[in-house]
């Protein structure tokens, strides 16, 4: 009888210990689950940031290209430092083949006159861009000037234009 009582007491103690272990295990599981959720959230956040940074870099690349483009004697004006020559653009329009290496990696490059008239000068179009590709464009305002002559006088007539560079957008898969 006494032996049976001791055994029951021991069994109760063991069950309580098991419950305690179970409780700790569940607690640990909950914590692991909680931290995993935080980690997944952080990972997703970082991934988004990475894609944003990639697109930001692409934008910087476009701006750098604009600076390079506007200071290139093939496109720049004679008198102004930040300007595109409209007459040169007219002559060089649709010469994609010649600028294949210069604009490699881009989808298209064009200059759009926005004021007072609307006219687009296509400088480069990448033939490898597929219709299903998502294209993102970066633009910067630039004066579009042309040399004018009247009564023995010559002057620069500048209009408002946008230099647009477009490239494939890097999207999250």
């Amino acid at each position, binding site marked *: 009888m006494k032996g049976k009582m001791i055994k029951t007491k021991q069994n109760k103690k063991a069950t309580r210990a098991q419950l305690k272990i179970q409780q700790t295990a569940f607690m640990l599981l909950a914590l692991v689950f909680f931290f995993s959720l935080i980690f997944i959230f952080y990972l997703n956040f970082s991934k988004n940031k990475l894609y944003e940074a990639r697109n930001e870099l692409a934008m910087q690349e476009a701006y750098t290209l604009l600076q390079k483009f506007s200071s290139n004697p093939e496109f720049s004006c004679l008198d102004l430092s930040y300007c595109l020559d409209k007459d040169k653009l007219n002559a060089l329009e649709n010469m994609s083949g010649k600028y294949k290496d210069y604009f490699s990696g881009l989808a298209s490059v064009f200059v759009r006159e926005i004021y007072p008239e609307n006219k687009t000068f296509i400088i480069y179009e990448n033939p490898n861009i597929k219709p299903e590709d998502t294209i993102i464009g970066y633009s910067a305002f630039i004066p579009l000037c042309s040399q004018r002559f009247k*009564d023995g006088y010559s002057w620069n*007539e500048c209009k408002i234009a946008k230099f647009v560079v477009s490239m494939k957008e890097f999207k999250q898969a």
Partner: protein
Amino acid sequence: MRYKILKGKKAQEEILGFVLIILLVIVGGVIFLAITLNKPVEEQQSLEAENLLQTVLSYTTNCAIQFEPQYDSIQDLIGDCYSGFSCSNLGANSCEVLNSSLNSILTASLGNVEILKTSKITAYTFEIKAEDNSSISSIPVIFSGNCTNKLEYGASQPIETNSGKLNIFLKLCYS
């Protein structure tokens, strides 16, 4: 009875521990978010304002102060308006030509009020001030859109005129 009270106390302690852990995690998260979100925004976007300001100032107007075809650029026209000159070829006040040209250029470049409601740039301000930062009565501030609670970036350009130095400001508001 005593055993039950002890057990209850232990459970309370465990709950308190758990709450403390959660609180610590939340505090950590809040600090992390505050550091991440408080990073200063890069100046990149002001490049757009700078480009636009330079482009606007280079625009050739149809106003010639002395004779045709010596047409003024917007930058020249600002100086001529400040000095009180008139456009001899148009028979108009240079300030009127300046204001109408600026309004048309900015509307064509950034959009009208309706377009600004849906575009990335929600508002713009074009302002010309004297060297002592005072406003010029003949050149009103050009403003369009809604800039409340928006990120504001700008560009400025000092210019020299016959009547003194002026500062030109272009502010863009981004959604």
